[in-house]
């Protein structure tokens, strides 16, 4: 993936991609100005660009961003504590793992976000609903990856622990956890991404809180350029968040 030569080789296609993107935007701008596309459905790209500043200044983007970030933080904290905890439990109690691992996998493929009306009733229209939605959405991958990591510890390491007569506690802290850490981080990363997707989505759906609500509000005001700008902003934030978690993962994973 990395390496100077490859980075240089990658430069040309990346430039082409960017050029096509800009060309597409310019084409849309032209088509709208020519009247082919209705400007009351698709605002001018230049207008969207211009409304970026207005949206950031007038709609309290920093506060909203901070709120969404806080929700994501609490969801991730809950995910890590409960996900890793349950993963360790499933790994320690073998029969429990045999009984419930397929259930956890099924939970991962279930549309859990549809439970948001239920969570609205239980937790009220508040940040708690959003945090819990993020938590539920991201729980399954953390559990599964924790179990996978712990179970995938190399036999040699466990045999070494045995020959040193480590207590079960020591075995966990000195052998199993360090060996499973890369896999656990992959799980937490996946969980965090699912949590963020659901947090922003539920904010939009229940019209409460941070960045997701911003889009809903601007759309209801029929502020077209503002809506498009806000969507671009949220997409940008999620892409940056995704890139950041990837970097973090690469940084935390020991190089092979």
């Amino acid at each position, binding site marked *: 993936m990395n390496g100077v030569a490859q980075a240089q080789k990658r430069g040309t296609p990346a430039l082409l991609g960017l050029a*096509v993107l800009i060309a597409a935007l310019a084409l849309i701008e032209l088509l709208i100005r020519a009247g082919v596309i209705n400007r009351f459905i698709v605002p001018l790209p230049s207008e969207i660009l211009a409304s970026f500043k207005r949206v950031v200044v007038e709609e309290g983007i920093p506060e909203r961003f901070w709120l969404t970030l806080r929700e994501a933080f609490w969801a991730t904290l809950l995910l890590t504590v409960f996900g890793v905890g349950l993963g360790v439990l499933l790994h320690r109690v073998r*029969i429990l793992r045999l009984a*419930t691992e397929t259930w956890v996998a099924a939970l991962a493929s279930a549309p859990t976000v549809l*439970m*948001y009306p239920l969570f609205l009733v239980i937790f009220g229209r508040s940040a708690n609903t959003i945090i819990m939605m993020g938590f539920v959405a991201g729980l399954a991958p953390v559990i599964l990856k924790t179990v996978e990591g712990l179970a995938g510890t190399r036999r040699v390491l466990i045999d070494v622990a045995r020959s040193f007569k480590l207590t079960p506690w020591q075995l966990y802290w000195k052998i199993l956890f360090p060996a499973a850490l890369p896999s656990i981080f992959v799980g937490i990363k996946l969980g965090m991404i699912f949590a963020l997707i659901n947090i*922003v989505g539920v904010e*939009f*759906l229940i019209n409460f809180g941070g960045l997701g609500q911003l889009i809903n509000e601007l759309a209801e005001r029929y502020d077209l350029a503002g809506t498009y700008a806000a969507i671009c902003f949220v*997409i940008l934030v*999620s892409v940056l968040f995704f890139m950041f978690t990837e970097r973090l993962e690469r940084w935390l994973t020991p190089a092979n």
Partner: protein
Amino acid sequence: MAHTGQLTASPLRLPGLSRVTLLRIAIILAVLAIWEAVAASGLLFRDVVPSLTVIARALASLLGEEGFYWNLGVTAGEVGTGLVIGGFAGLVVGIVLGGSRFLSRAFEPYIYYLGPTPKIIFFPVMIMWFGVGPGSKVAMGTISCFFPIALSVAAGMRQIDGVLIRVGRSFRANTWQMVTKIYLPAMRAPIVNGVRLGLGVAIIGTLLAETKLSNRGIGFLIINSYSTFNMPRMYSLLIAVFVLSIGVNALVSRLGNLEAVKRR
């Protein structure tokens, strides 16, 4: 529960199986018992945790309703249309990007990084483009399933055995023949996996759009039972949706497994 703490694989396969089944039944019974106890205790707000018999009755009456199947049909139609459009677009884009290293470097990062973003926020734009009717829901399903399918197909293209491609070339197969005779059969597993992932997110995208703004479909029924505070009905709807989507998911992945077995 056996707190053995053993790390080695236990050789007790046969008795372990029945014990696992027993444990599963015990867990289910325990959860149901706790649920019923909470319902009876009145600790939570009334109706938030309704008694199991109430939920069972609501589920039975839901499954007996003609309107439920009509709304299910509407949602299934929207999801299916979205999956066909998004899946076809994903397949084409995936084959093009996976087939060319240059194009993949140029455009795949956009798809890769747009993939894990919350798609539902495009819904207001989709309403403006396709109206408040089924069109905008189909569009949500399409956007949702395009990304996983395109990425899965592109990755699948790169994993095709080079020998197969060289065989196709040496037979002077044209592009269409290459796609239908070499690429698609060789990529069955990643395509099925992509469709499985895509179907899951298409269901979510469509149903969420329905809960936000619509007057038909399962998502509408869910949000309607919320606004009338009919909790037993909401639970039974959620149970129906979960069972259906987990079932469809299992069905598609079984399809993938079967095909994988057949190939050998």
